[in-house]
């Protein structure tokens, strides 16, 4: 697992690789918060192109950072998710909160209804 940050066009670009579970969640949350504290960029983009697995611990970090970004008027986007990760994101109801780039040949409608209201 590794993560990195870039600031570009008023957006914090947060890339993470590997399996995003409980083991990674605390460290990553801390790093993201630090980045959001020091940066004036309002928007947040998660680059998931190297994420191989995510569970609800990882999703919790994304949702928490979404709330922070939204509170300061920023937009949150997730790009590069593979089919399985995309499915988990949509099932969780995240597509209603943020823009999620769909992998080739898949749309949110292909994944049965979100679980979060």
């Amino acid at each position, binding site marked *: 697992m590794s993560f990195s940050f870039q600031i570009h066009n008023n957006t914090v670009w947060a890339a993470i690789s590997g399996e995003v579970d409980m083991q990674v969640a605390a460290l990553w949350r801390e790093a993201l918060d630090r980045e959001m504290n020091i940066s004036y960029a309002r928007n947040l983009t998660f680059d998931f192109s190297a994420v191989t697995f995510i569970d*609800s611990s990882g999703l919790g970090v994304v949702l928490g950072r979404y709330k922070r970004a939204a509170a300061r008027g920023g937009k949150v986007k997730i790009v590069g998710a593979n*089919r*399985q990760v995309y499915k988990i994101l949509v099932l969780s109801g995240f597509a209603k909160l943020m823009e999620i780039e769909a992998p080739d040949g898949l749309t949110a409608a292909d994944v049965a209804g979100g679980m979060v209201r």
Partner: protein
Amino acid sequence: MMSDDMKNLQAEFADSAAWGEVLNFARLSFAACAENVSLARSTVAAMIAARPEDNWDVTLACLEEIKVAVSEAVSNAIIHGYGGDNSQTVQLAVCQYQFALLVQVVDKGVGIADVAKAREPDFTTGAEHLGLGFAFMETFCDEVLVQSTPHEGTTVTLLKLFPPAAAADEPC
């Protein structure tokens, strides 16, 4: 090939005759720490992947879904059962049949007073906990059994069915 406690586990399911022969089983005890969430799901995934020649119609998506379900069950045991106390032990049991997979995650932690409430999708005990653990388990498994006694612990049993290839229109 089956240990007695696996037989006890199987006895809780009425339709276990349809699961076919036991192909493999494993039992693992590990520290209730974050690193072992991946240990648990990788163990289950490795057991599934080790038997490609059997009559399992396990697609990549199925495998990934089982990993998520195991991850949620073990994360719950560590976070909620033991409140992050790494010195405690989580037990994992896996029994692999021709047409089914049974996974059990046991903690001897605080237990759940109201299991039905804990299983509701919006139920959550912390600001950044989504309350989606059980929802993922239920979405990705065919059956989820939760037995819990306050102050004694929680046992979560996941059943995933893999119908014979010929009968399955959709493997997942």
